[in-house]
């Protein structure tokens, strides 16, 4: 056992050289690789987080839009229903008016025809009465002289 001073000095020089080598050629590249990987992983995780957030936002947005579309659809349907009801009501009203008109014109026609018939009948009755009276009063009655009386009679019938 013993200690050799030259060996100590030699070892120290070797140690210094080894440390220099490690410091220059070993540590930096390995550290760089490790740090780069760390950064990569950190970025990856951050991107994943961001993607997740974006997805959540998009899905909530789509939900909202869906909801809006649904309400809009409901509104449109309601409006359409209302319009349809209005149309039906209007059609019904028109139809009723038309019906009334047709009925009224029918009535008017009937009345007119009845009036015509009545006039015709009246004339015939007057003719009949005149001809009957003529036959009865053939001789005494002058058609021309009594025409005024007979006309008044016919108008009263």
């Amino acid at each position: 056992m013993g200690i050799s001073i030259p060996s100590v000095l030699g070892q120290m020089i070797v140690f210094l050289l080894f440390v220099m080598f490690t410091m220059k050629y070993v540590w930096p590249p390995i550290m760089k690789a490790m740090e780069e990987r760390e950064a990569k992983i950190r970025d990856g995780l951050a991107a994943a987080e961001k993607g997740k957030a974006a997805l959540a936002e998009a899905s909530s947005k789509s939900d909202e839009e869906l909801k809006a579309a649904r309400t809009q659809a409901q509104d449109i349907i309601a409006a359409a229903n209302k319009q349809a009801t209005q149309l039906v009501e209007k059609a019904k009203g028109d139809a009723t008016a038309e019906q009334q008109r047709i009925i009224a014109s029918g009535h008017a026609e009937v009345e007119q025809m009845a009036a015509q018939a009545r006039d015709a009948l009246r004339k015939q009755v007057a003719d009949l009465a005149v001809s009957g009276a003529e036959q009865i009063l053939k001789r005494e009655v002058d058609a021309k002289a009594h025409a005024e009386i007979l006309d008044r009679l016919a108008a009263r019938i």
Partner: protein
Amino acid sequence: MAGDNTAAGYVTHHLEHLKAGSENGFIRFDTWHLDTLFFSTVLGLLMLTVFRIVAVRATSGVPGKLQSFVEVLVGFVDDSVKGSFHGNRGFVAPMALTIFAWVFLWNVMDLIPVDLFPILGQLIGLEYMRVVPSADMSATFALSISVFILILIYSIKGKGVGGFAKEYLTHPFGKNPLLIPANLIINTVELLAKPLSLALRLFGNLYAGELIFILIALLGMTWTGFNVMSLGLFFGQLVAGFGWAVFHILVVTLQAFIFMTLTIVYLGMAHEHH
């Protein structure tokens, strides 16, 4: 085995370095521990080669198995440094990685059968061979003295020469001039204790581990033929060697970790204002 064939001779032989030079005291100024220098440098080059290969092929995409392993190491060291050293890690972190991996590899040499390399060495004419660099104070002190120098550098860098001197003279007892000697003594002891404890802790653990492995290897050396005693001792060697090796897996890793962590802590303390 080599040396004389007694147990003591075997152990002594195993604890002798392959030396260049003739001095034999405890502190040798004219002797090189060739085995320590060789093995520590080869292990260090191996480590740097693997690291460099990974660094060249490093990708920020999906890493391979080797890259994952080195990245775990780098990340672990970087976290440790981040925890204790607040400043620019550009130098300290790579140094901590070098210390951890290098000391770990030194310690791992302890798990190689104690006679393997010495026998191989003898085949090529090398009389002595110690393969565990961290069981040699030359190696552990080389690291800890380097750390000591770094502590001084970082103290001055962090606090300035004046700040460092002021802290050295007035910390921890106070500013009273009468207390300067006490402060001086305690700071000197604290400062010197750091490299000493760093080096001796690592050395002591691995030296003791190596010694135990050598002693365990002695069990089977008493082989006298197929008798109960020899077989029992042989079996004992297997069991004890296995147990000690398993325990040593912990020691190997732990000591490397402790050396690195304390280095970081010392530098962090040196760099910081109080």
